[in-house]
């Protein structure tokens, strides 16, 4: 009755509200004109092409990629053993460890960036890129631990015991029996971490400088001075990148199962 009309109406409006702006950006980026406008005046890929020519975008993209990939990998290297310890052992300070590792989700990123700048970079001349890298790694760490923990909790521990009784060492049992079965979780954690790091802004706000800039920060700076569709084009490209990764993850992995 009313539900039958109301329901599609609500959903329609909702999706327009959530996704519409994104579609508008895509359209605006295809504008043949010179200013940012919607509807676009004519269609052209020139702004999309322009994005690739802007040096600072290329550099900051590389930086963002570097941070996302290696920061997440580092977070996994730290996080997988921690997740294993938390899920398999009755750790004496388990809750404390879990809280400390989850801090980055609770503490607003901007504060961390500021704190690192003020106490590490400025007084000691600590390398900004390194500080940024550490911040991104710490940012992704809670996601890594959480997702991998969930996978481990779903895996019975007697499998490892069985492997050990059949002659395997503990480490061997982990790599032969546990890893193959949490592979999906690890990959999901990686993708989640990658997307989180790549799109991250507040942490990187203060930890920027000449040559050290993440892409979103670079975009913000560009937006302040230039009002052309380049940003729209870049936003669209990045959005497709993110969506593409997650889509592939869902397709080949069933990504949504892990998060």
């Amino acid at each position, binding site marked *: 009755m009313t539900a039958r009309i109301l329901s599609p109406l609500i*959903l329609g409006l909702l999706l327009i509200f959530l996704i519409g702006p994104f579609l508008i950006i895509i359209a605006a980026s295809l504008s043949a004109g010179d200013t940012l406008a919607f509807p676009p005046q004519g269609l052209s890929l020139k702004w999309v092409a322009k994005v690739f020519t802007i040096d600072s975008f290329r550099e900051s993209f590389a930086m963002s990629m570097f941070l996302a990939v290696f920061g997440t990998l580092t977070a996994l290297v730290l996080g997988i053993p921690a997740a294993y310890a938390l899920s398999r052992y*009755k750790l004496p300070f388990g809750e404390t460890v879990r809280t400390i590792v989850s801090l980055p989700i609770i503490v607003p990123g901007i504060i961390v960036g500021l704190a690192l700048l003020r106490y590490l970079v400025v007084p000691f001349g600590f390398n900004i890129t390194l500080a940024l890298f550490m911040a991104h790694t710490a940012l992704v760490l809670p996601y890594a631990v959480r997702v991998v923990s969930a996978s481990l909790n779903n895996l019975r521990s007697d499998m490892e015991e069985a492997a050990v009784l059949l002659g395997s060492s503990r480490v061997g049992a982990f790599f032969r029996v546990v890893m193959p079965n949490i592979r999906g979780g690890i990959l999901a954690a990686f993708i989640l971490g990658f997307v989180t790091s790549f799109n991250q802004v507040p942490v990187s706000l203060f930890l920027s400088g000449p040559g050290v800039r993440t892409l979103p920060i670079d975009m*913000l700076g560009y937006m302040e001075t230039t009002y052309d569709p380049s940003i729209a084009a870049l936003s669209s490209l990045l959005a497709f990148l993110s969506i593409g990764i997650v889509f592939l993850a869902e397709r080949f992995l069933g990504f949504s199962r892990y998060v």
Partner: protein
Amino acid sequence: MFQNRAEALALALPAAVFAALVFLLPVVVLLSEGFRIDGSWMLSAYTGFFSESLNRTVFLRTFRLGLEVTAVSAVIGYAAAFAIVNLPPKGKGRVIGLVTLPLMISPVARTYAWIVILGRTGIVNQAIQGLGLSDGPLRLLFTETAVFIGLLQLFLPLMILSLISALENMPKDAVPAARVLGANWFQVFWKVILPLTREGLVVGGTLVFTGSLTAYITPAVLGGSKVLMLETLLYQQVSVANNFVSASVIAFMLIVMSIAANILLKRLATARNKR
């Protein structure tokens, strides 16, 4: 086989130490700056901060907007979640995917879209002028409304997903049972659905509220310096005014609000498990 505590600690320590050194330590030091003037502990930084009307305005505005966004997202969230939960499986999956989609896109992109829409030459203004409702372009950007809309769009998916999960975990017979006993839809919502989905509401609400409090990009882009929020104020205090004490005060408040929200969340989670 999992008895050796030393083993466990060795495995967990690197991550914990790393997080403590990179996050905990610097932040604690930063926060202490707000409590110490010239080497002695006092609260004058805080009293000083709140004595300025600008700061009070910013603090209240941030809080108020946070609550508004949370409230509105709850209402829309329930409506949307109901609609989605009753969809056939295939459609449901697709719609949920579409709702989750924005979460994967950079906040910069998502916020930027509103410039296109709300700007002087944006769609809304074009429509308003086209319809003859106004002679000149309205200033829609750099208003609280713009920030509100931006934040809502940013966090609404979180509320919706949370409520969907809560609705699906509700015992399936609860609503029909209430209907059979004579409840109308309003009563069903208030007395059955709301209590049973309370946790989902709290989870979603906490995520939306803390998100709104600690958002940077959206207030920065859509509000600018005309609609300052706590994080944009913080940025300003550091980069323009070089006022670290003030920044520390703001940081402390942000963290306290964030932690308070998280503790509330944990309390409610454990309260449930006890039942």
